[in-house]
């Protein structure tokens, strides 16, 4: 992981240049993003961190190809992004699982090009990876929030994408489940080594997970600072270095670290 940081500047997996985004509503133009330049390295875990409504989700939707930016370009593997692509899966909050499909059906959703046997092996593998064995025939409404979230991650991983885009995936979970899910995500990331862009407004979450944390300003969002988290996993969240990095980001955002 440390080795990959050094190479980042040379072969970026994703390269966003000069991204600007503004929305028109009732004749007014609101600038949401301004001149964003961002590189994400192969296999990197990158967090976009910013206050609610700052436009970090908009940025994620742009790099994932769901939105077209007003200005700027997004290149992935040297190709410009024209729309969503099965090589890069977007994980919504747990609402994204299909309620009319069982756990198996959801995990197999993107696997329609495989033969039946391949599909079944793949489904079983990823159900096991996210720890949903025994729930293959269950429908999402019978699952807890954390299980639905793991299901969505399994559905995304099953198509073997190069990249995952996660938009506040644990935002709707309770704080205990959220902690467990962070551990699970890191375990999966270490097993599968996908490039991950993870949007969050939770500073602790960003520092616990990411290789680099991109701190974004309030609207119109610009990149305020990029903080490299040079602590190997598993991270000791009471180590001096962790606290130093975390407090540095708190200060960067302009929050006194006292309530």
């Amino acid at each position, binding site marked *: 992981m440390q080795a990959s940081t050094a190479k980042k500047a040379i072969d970026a997996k994703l390269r966003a240049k000069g991204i600007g985004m503004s929305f028109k509503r009732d004749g007014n133009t609101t600038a949401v993003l301004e001149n964003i330049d961002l590189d994400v390295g192969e296999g990197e875990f990158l967090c976009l961190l910013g206050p609610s409504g700052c436009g970090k989700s908009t940025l994620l939707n742009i790099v994932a190809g769901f939105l077209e930016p007003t200005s700027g370009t997004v290149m992935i593997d040297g190709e410009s992004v024209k*729309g969503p*692509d099965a090589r890069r899966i977007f994980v919504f909050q747990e609402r994204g699982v299909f309620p009319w499909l069982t756990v198996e059906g959801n995990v197999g959703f993107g696997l329609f090009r495989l033969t039946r046997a391949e599909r079944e092996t793949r489904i079983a593998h990823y159900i096991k990876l996210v720890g949903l064995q025994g729930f293959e025939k269950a429908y999402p409404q019978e699952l807890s929030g954390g299980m639905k979230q793991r299901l969505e991650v399994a559905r995304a991983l099953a198509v073997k994408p190069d990249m995952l885009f996660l938009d506040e995936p644990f935002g709707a979970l309770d704080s205990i489940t959220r902690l467990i899910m962070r551990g699970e995500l890191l375990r999966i990331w270490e097993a599968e080594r996908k490039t991950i862009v993870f949007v969050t407004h939770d500073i602790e979450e960003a520092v616990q997970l990411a290789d680099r944390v991109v701190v974004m300003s309030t609207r119109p969002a610009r990149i305020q600072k990029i903080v490299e988290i040079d602590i190997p996993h598993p991270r000791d969240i009471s180590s001096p270095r962790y606290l130093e990095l975390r407090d540095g980001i708190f200060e960067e955002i302009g929050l006194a670290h006292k309530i």
Partner: protein
Amino acid sequence: MNLLVRLRPLGFIVLLLAAWHVAVNRQAVHLLPDPLQVAGGFVELIQRGLLLKYVVASLFRVTWGFCLAAIIAIPAGLAIGWHRRLEMALNPFLQILRPISPLAWIPISILWFGVGDVAAIFLIFLASLLPLTLTAINAVEGIPAVYVNAGRNFGLSPVRLVYSVLYPAVIPRLILGLRITLGIAWLVVVAAEMIAVNSGLGFLIVDARNAGNRYDLVVAGMVSIGLIGLLLDMGMRSLESVRAFRWGYSED
């Protein structure tokens, strides 16, 4: 205890029948036949082989009219709902048609199809067409964007997107719309049969009155209509408990 709760509606009906019986027989002038006379009417209809024949005739018309409407309205409504511009263009027209009672079409359907089965089926078709179209339009518009985005993300072709995302996502609302519309169709068939044909439960009611004021048969016809309407609704409602559809009806 549970059984007692379940039997409560039945108990209520028995109580009403008893009250009906007493009330009718305390009057010198009979404004209604009493329940026993109605039961006698049922027996007579069954003996003459008319009850089954009329029920089948009415259901036949409803089935045709309703199914033809569903075959046309659901795909059309889904397409209209999917293409926002089409919906914007068509919506005023649909809203103008909406307040026109299906029964207002009776003269025109007789003009086009003469007096007979086809005119009655056409009325049911018309009565079902608009509610089903509107249901399908609303169902598509109600699909959360995340489902469509997720479908696109996995590289689904347009055809596959329709049958793996669009179609399953609208099913619960469609079932609800089909259920309500079937109720409307059943209301309309009875009215249509009062005018356009010479069989069916609606015909029975008009005919029993015209042929000698047989109000026992009139009420027997009304009760049959109610019971069959209940059965149709229960049939549609049972679709709502299918496991793959149930998500659409939960409070969550």
